[in-house]
């Protein structure tokens, strides 16, 4: 039964997943190509110098990409469930409703990570070939909360999409927006290093929000 839910989710997200994978790899590849060009023109020592002197990380254009990928994935996965209330079909399946929703969220989160991981690997492979360990780690640590924001955006959007009433959806959306800002607060690279364990725990708790929407849906809340 769990595999059947995976199958349903795959049908919904497959084209978006492919697009997200291409975008994720494409943007990371582009950022690395830009860096490679700068390295070939000015030399790696100059890049090192700029990173140390000006706190540059050279992948700024990737900052909001995971966020949008996470948001988009939740939209293509959960909005079709709410169209004409077909979520009722899912809840009528002979499986616990919380299990069904948890499986859907877990599948989506894993598929989102599969779009992030190749991009992170591309960055890792190239950066560690031209930069000192402290410098490439500096870039990847700086990007870590962006990817965490992508997961958070996915869970928040799922929460909002599964909410049965429009008024509450707007409220939940505002709360989600305010919360998402936490992932993008300090401009200083690596500012989140000490905060990351807590941010990770909080992000991994966010699927519980969808259970609130599930409860409200099953109680028959409507506009």
């Amino acid at each position, binding site marked *: *039964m769990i*595999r*059947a839910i995976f*199958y*349903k989710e795959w*049908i*919904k997200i497959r084209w978006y997943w492919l697009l997200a994978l291409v975008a994720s790899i494409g943007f990371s590849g582009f950022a690395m190509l830009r860096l490679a060009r700068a390295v070939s023109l000015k030399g790696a020592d100059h890049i090192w110098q700029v990173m140390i002197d000006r706190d540059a990380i050279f992948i700024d254009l990737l900052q909001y990409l995971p966020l949008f990928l996470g948001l988009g994935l939740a939209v293509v996965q959960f909005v*079709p469930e709410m*169209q*004409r*209330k*077909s979520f*009722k*079909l899912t*809840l*009528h*399946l*002979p*499986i*616990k409703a919380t299990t069904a929703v948890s499986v859907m969220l877990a599948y989506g989160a894993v598929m989102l990570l599969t779009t992030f991981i190749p991009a992170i690997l591309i960055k890792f492979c190239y950066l560690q070939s031209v930069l000192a360990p402290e410098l490439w780690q500096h870039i990847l640590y700086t990007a870590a909360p962006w990817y965490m924001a992508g997961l958070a955006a996915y869970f928040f959007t799922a929460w909002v999409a599964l909410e049965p009433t429009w008024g509450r959806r707007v409220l939940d959306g505002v709360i989600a927006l305010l919360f998402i800002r936490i992932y993008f607060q300090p401009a200083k690279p690596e500012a989140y290093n000490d905060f990351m364990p807590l941010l990770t725990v909080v992000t991994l708790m966010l699927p519980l929000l969808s259970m609130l929407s599930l409860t409200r*849906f*099953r*109680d*028959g809340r409507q506009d």
Partner: protein
Amino acid sequence: MENVIECRNLTHYYGKRLIYKDLNFNVPRGRILGLLGKNGTGKTTTINILSGFLQPRSGECFILGEKIGQMNPETRRRIGLLIEGHVQYQFMNIEQIEKFYSAFYPNWKREAYYELMSRLQVAPHQRINRMSCGQRSQVALGLILAQDPEVLVLDDFSLGLDPGYRRLFVDYLREYAKSEDKTVFLTSHIIQDMERLVDDCIIMDYGRILVQMPVDKLLNDMHRYTATVADGFSLGEAEGLYNPSVVRNTLEVFSMRPQEEVRAVLAQQGLLEVAAEKVNLEDAFIGLTGKY
């Protein structure tokens, strides 16, 4: 006879608006029961409560002996649900949706589904969101037949269907339910379909049940009485006479009381020339609930 569906003292409000209070009904095993009511009388509310998608303000419902809302998923496997508008996963095609559902039901009858699908003029890979309402209804019905549940809960199965698809749906469903001893609880806004399909009916008015009885008995007992009356005639209150109306000097009134009693009551009001006729289910429904 064992009751497959039992609802006791159901009360529900939307905000402060009372939908119904202390509603009680049962559906015995092997019966097809149709819930009839005007718009806003609580048909979909009742279906939503029965399907576990609405918590009533008070009261409780049981299907197959289990309280709805705390139902074991295994019990849900024995219940087929048709959502209003024949909603199915729009993003799947007929092969994908069959493959998906078959994983949940051990007794899945693939051939029953594809037998019905063979009647549709759709390509196997055509997505459900590109099908007509009639085609979607057949997909939804085919999935229920393949699931082979003990109990079927169908919300407004005729919504959006043309007469051909309605007839196909009704004939298939009745044949299936009767041959397999299924229990069916359904609503429809097209009452002629109900007449062909249901054994028992519940007719609801705002906030209450007017009658719950076998359709045969209702149609046997209910009569429409007409008489020519003078301008300004108004029928006085009489027990068991429903919704009298006068249109162009013709009085029309419905009753389930024995004919001789009704004639006697009307005679007391000066109506001696009274015609009585049998009614169909739609007329009986109008007779009980009124035209407006």
